[in-house]
């Protein structure tokens, strides 16, 4: 009898496990933690926007996270959470939307109904709609163009790379599309793309099994509509180097981003090999990488220069790559932070009173030449070994807090992995120099790229002429810097200034006309 009960019990456990597997769940129990972190992720993102309603997924998610829910107004929800210092927010990216809830363990039971309401019973009131949409409209009309020329150039580069596809538009939409979004659109989009078929649950910290089971059971009550996430469009192959110069009033410098399609992601083992090459060339915010050394450290041209083999969110603020932005459609890119424009150089140094263009053309040539040299010569054994050792330590820093650890685990699933950071370490450990150099040659080329430059209206035309004509662009140093530069740097400058780029098209776009 006792044995039978045991068998029955184990059968129940198995049954329960099978049922639980229907929903993708990531667990990270940390019994010493003083908090509970819940992440609820939907595989939708801005690529799930209907063609004529760009920004709808973002708007729907914002309405859920910044509006009333369960019949409780947004203000009252804020009031309830205030003494607990509990919080929640949402982050919409191109392919996923992630809600993150955090609460001290002591208040999880009181907080739970709010989690449930936000996800299952958003109120979608006219009043919240008016506020949330004003903010979104404001962003696409003004804020995106006026906050950071660096981010502006990055978004504009994506716009070029993915033109014509579902990855093209800003996740917030366009000035025209946001105006067309109605509350009914949001209500039906919520039913259509926030469903129990495309939800993933993540939970970390000091939580109980009871809480986890409650979450699973409640998330099963999401819309049951059949939903298949769209396939993200691929980045376009440029025909030669295609450049868009965004002309802006009162820009202080030229902000540059350039990129080309990349066929691999974290899902591919080869990604680790390319990661080593990329880290050596342009590790984000690292002073010892090649581009930084050449452009900033040696030549004093700007604040920093980096390269990427996947999307890097909010690079101006983040020192380490955040979770929550997994993407299946990728490109590699170079970020050249704002360099000087002619009018600034003229006003700063009498000896540069006659310069016609600033440093953008030279900087672009220098960065692309560095890639060409790497593609041609490969990494050295010494650089390879040092970079591999660095990355095996550095990537362990990506996921430190419970929320980030959970986020990275959830991203792992997106790429068909279980614990990407652990798997990455093994992949890095096994990568050889030959594999790295092979990956470089296979995935990087500089003949066909898209480039975006945000610059001052006084600089746009002379820069465009210089780029399309492949005009030599000698580096214009102040005398103070030039007098101390070693001969080999000046010789290299000469080569860079005349380095041919395969520029086939240069377009000047008025800032007001971008993202249309």
């Amino acid at each position, binding site marked *: 009898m006792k044995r039978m009960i045991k068998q029955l019990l184990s059968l129940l456990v198995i049954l329960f496990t099978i049922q639980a597997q229907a929903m993708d769940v990531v667990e990270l129990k940390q019994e010493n933690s003083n908090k509970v972190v819940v992440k609820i992720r939907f595989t939708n993102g801005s690529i799930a926007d209907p063609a004529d309603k760009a920004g709808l997924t973002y708007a729907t998610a914002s309405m859920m996270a910044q509006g009333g829910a369960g019949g409780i107004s947004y203000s009252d929800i804020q009031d309830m959470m205030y003494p607990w210092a509990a919080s929640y927010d949402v982050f919409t990216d191109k392919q996923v939307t992630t809600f993150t809830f955090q609460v001290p363990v002591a208040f999880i039971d009181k907080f739970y109904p709010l989690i449930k309401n936000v996800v299952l019973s958003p109120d979608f009131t006219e009043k919240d709609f008016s506020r949330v949409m004003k903010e979104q409209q404001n962003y696409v009309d003004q804020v995106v163009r006026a906050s950071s020329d660096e981010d502006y150039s990055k978004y504009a580069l994506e716009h070029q790379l993915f033109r014509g596809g579902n990855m093209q538009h800003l996740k917030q939409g366009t000035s025209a599309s946001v105006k067309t979004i109605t509350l009914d659109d949001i209500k039906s989009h919520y039913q259509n793309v926030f469903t129990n078929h495309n939800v993933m649950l993540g939970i970390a910290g000091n939580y109980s099994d009871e809480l986890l089971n409650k979450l699973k059971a409640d998330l099963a009550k999401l819309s049951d509509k059949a939903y298949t996430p769209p396939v993200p469009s691929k980045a376009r192959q440029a025909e030669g180097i295609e450049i868009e110069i965004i002309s802006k009033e009162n820009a202080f410098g030229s*902000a540059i981003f350039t990129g080309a399609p990349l066929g691999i992601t974290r899902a591919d083992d080869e990604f680790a090999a390319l990661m080593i090459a990329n880290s050596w060339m342009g590790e984000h915010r690292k002073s010892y990488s090649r581009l930084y050394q050449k452009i900033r450290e040696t030549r004093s041209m700007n*604040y920093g220069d980096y390269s990427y083999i996947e999307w890097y969110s909010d690079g101006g603020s983040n020192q380490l790559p955040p979770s929550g932005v997994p993407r299946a459609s990728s490109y590699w890119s170079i970020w050249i932070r704002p360099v000087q424009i002619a009018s600034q150089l003229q006003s700063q140094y009498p000896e540069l009173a006659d310069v016609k263009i600033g440093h953008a053309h030279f900087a672009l040539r220098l960065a692309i030449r560095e890639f060409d040299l790497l593609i041609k010569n490969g990494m050295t054994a010494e650089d390879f070994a040092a970079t591999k050792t660095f990355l095996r330590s550095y990537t362990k820093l990506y996921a430190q807090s419970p929320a980030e650890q959970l986020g990275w685990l959830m991203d792992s699933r997106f790429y068909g992995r279980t614990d990407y950071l652990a798997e990455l370490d093994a992949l890095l450990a096994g990568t050889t120099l030959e594999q790295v150099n092979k990956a470089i040659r296979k995935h990087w080329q500089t003949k066909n790229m898209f480039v975006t430059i945000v610059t001052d209206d006084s600089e746009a035309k002379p820069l465009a002429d210089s780029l399309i004509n492949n005009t030599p662009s000698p580096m214009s140093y102040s005398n103070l810097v030039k007098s101390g530069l070693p001969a080999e740097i000046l010789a290299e400058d000469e080569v860079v200034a005349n380095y041919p780029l395969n520029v086939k098209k240069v377009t000047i776009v008025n800032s007001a006309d971008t993202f249309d």
Partner: protein
Amino acid sequence: MKTIIMAIAMGFTLIASLSTANADPTVAQADKILPYPIYQHKMANGLNVVTVPFDSPGLASLYIITRVGARNEVEPGVTGFAHFFEHMMFRGTDKYSKEEYGAALKSTGAAANANTSQDRTVYHMTGNSDMLDLMFELESDRFMNLKYSEHDFKTEAGAVKGEYTKNFASPYNQIDEKLSETAFNTHTYSHTTMGYFDDIVDMPNQYEYSKKFFDRYYRPEYNTVLVVGDVTPEKVNALAEKYFGAWKRGEYKSVVPVEPEQTETRYVHLQDGSIPAYFSMNFKGPAFSDSNIDMPALDVLASIVFSNTSDLYKKLVIDEQVVRFIGGGAADSRDPGLFTIAVSMVDKKDMPYVLAEIEKAIAKVKTEGVDPALLERTKSNLKYRFAMGIDTPEAIAESLSHYIQLTGDPESINRLYAMYDQVTADDVKMVANKYLNQDQLTIATISDDELGVLK
């Protein structure tokens, strides 16, 4: 309400009991906001060494807090120098050339960087705790023996100009520069940490001054070494003695001019229509103190009157929807700084109305004080928010370094949060009357108008 307060009390008990798991039993930790003991070791040369063991297997953060920032830029023509100097700290020594330094830093596999603000410069590394020996060696070598060529010095100035150039794209940074020089006439808070552009362009000419700057401030008495993570105080203290023991104390003390009393409202405006219209109200506030009630009371006031649960926020942002964002608070600073209320508008025409609503909210606190129940809820919020935020060595080190910059003593964090507990409704009323007055106010505006519309 009683239930909420009880729940709050229970929550604190829980946090305290969790925290004691890692605590040194000899240290009474339960009533401190930081649930981990802070070990301090004052070296003979004046260098303070702080260790906070934290359960993060294999991971540690090493922070060096240099209590020098834009505040110390007392001489003319050198605004922005503390920040510039932070850049120079990556330019090598006799032992490690800049290239060798870069390679050694890379070999630690750590996330390393630095930043500067009004009152301090912070150098930080987070990485493998097994690498701590090399991290200490690299840090002590540059802090004691920094050496760079005049050419490297001139070259680095271009990177600072690049930083200014990228920041300039934001109108908020532009108004910040104007606001500083309007709100302060004498004190060095009159310039931003970046410094004036003219001074930045002139930086390459300041090589000799840079050597003086290093000699003055990169001395043990201006610095604190802080390590948080998978470490013991014994190990950290031994490393500090080994690598920083020979560091010689300095003699320099900068005299920062005192800002005279402000006597009337000041105005500053940036004509820029590229972002939604914006204004900020900036009242002269107190200097940070962990023993005077004024700053804790102002922090509580800020949360009650200007946070996203405040009546003002609900009225202007949620209900009337005339404001995109409103927030307020005092910046902790070593000398009296600013209490700022910042507002981003939906439509600039409503600016005078919103200003009047803010003035009404302030007037209400001045006469009626605040609801005692809301006060308790606010205290709870402050404590839990802190507790929720300290879940990595880096987060704890960031938090401690903030208080080390202000007072030199990491225990300030525990004293401040104990002060929050003591804030009364009368205290909040008192600080509103003491600080939030028109003659102490500078109003900054951004709109497409030629002149500010709030004058």
